[in-house]
């Protein structure tokens, strides 16, 4: 949670800097954000490849539960597609791109900004931060009405780090490995799905 706050405050600082023209305008038109994105992708790949424990752990899972990341992805995309009917001025692919951030707001908002502009990028940022916050706040209710897997699905890509403690508490310790595995797979799918929906 503290890490998220730090990241969000950088966004707010940047917004204030832009609002009051503290930084020369041509700075934002450069290729800086593209290079930074490429570097970020390297670190994402590196951290996944470097963590041998997650790779080992998922051999011990109940075979049916392995479907959970798929269920999360399909459910999220279906929900986002339905919502696009309500938001008449957003296209189906816009909503799907925002939805397929799965709570991974830093990566998805940067990708979407790069492909679709800062407005949809900001929607992606807010939407995916909200997803993390909703999961943290409503985990007990989700367990009550949708079963023990629900907070994991709701948490999306965040279930191997920021929302893991809350899942361990309300779904149970048995679900920690499932949660890490789920976060790992959904995390991997984010760059692919976001880029896919941004480019069709």
């Amino acid at each position: 949670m503290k890490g998220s706050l730090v990241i969000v405050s950088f966004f707010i600082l940047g917004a204030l800097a832009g609002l009051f023209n503290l930084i020369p305008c041509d700075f934002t038109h450069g290729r800086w954000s593209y290079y930074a994105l490429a570097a970020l992708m390297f670190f994402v790949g590196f951290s996944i490849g470097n963590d041998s424990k997650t790779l080992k752990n998922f051999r011990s899972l109940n075979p049916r539960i392995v479907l959970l990341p798929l269920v999360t992805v399909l459910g999220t995309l279906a929900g986002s597609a339905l919502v696009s009917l309500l938001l008449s001025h957003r296209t189906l692919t816009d909503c799907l791109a925002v939805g397929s951030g799965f709570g991974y707001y830093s990566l998805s908002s940067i990708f979407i900004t790069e492909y679709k502009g800062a407005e949809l990028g900001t929607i992606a940022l807010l939407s995916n931060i909200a997803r993390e916050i909703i999961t943290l706040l409503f985990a007990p209710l989700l367990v009550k009405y949708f079963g023990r897997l629900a907070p994991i699905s709701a948490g999306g890509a965040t279930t191997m780090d920021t929302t893991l403690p809350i899942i361990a508490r309300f779904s149970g310790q048995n679900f920690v490995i499932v949660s890490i595995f789920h976060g790992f797979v959904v995390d991997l799918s984010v760059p692919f799905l976001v880029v896919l929906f941004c480019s069709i």
Partner: protein
Amino acid sequence: MIWVLLFLLGIDVGSNQAIMSGLHTIGLEALVITVGAVLGSVVGARLLWKWINKDLKEEARQ
């Protein structure tokens, strides 16, 4: 690294008049998409949970 990127996005947003003046509608849209996405995924999770539990109960009976 993420800090820098989010700072850059912040600059983009802060200096964009259209976004700053429509911030509340953007926030609302973001929230609507999130609620849809979360509901879709937890409904899926519920179906999977029932399926797994049904299997466990049948195993217990045998």
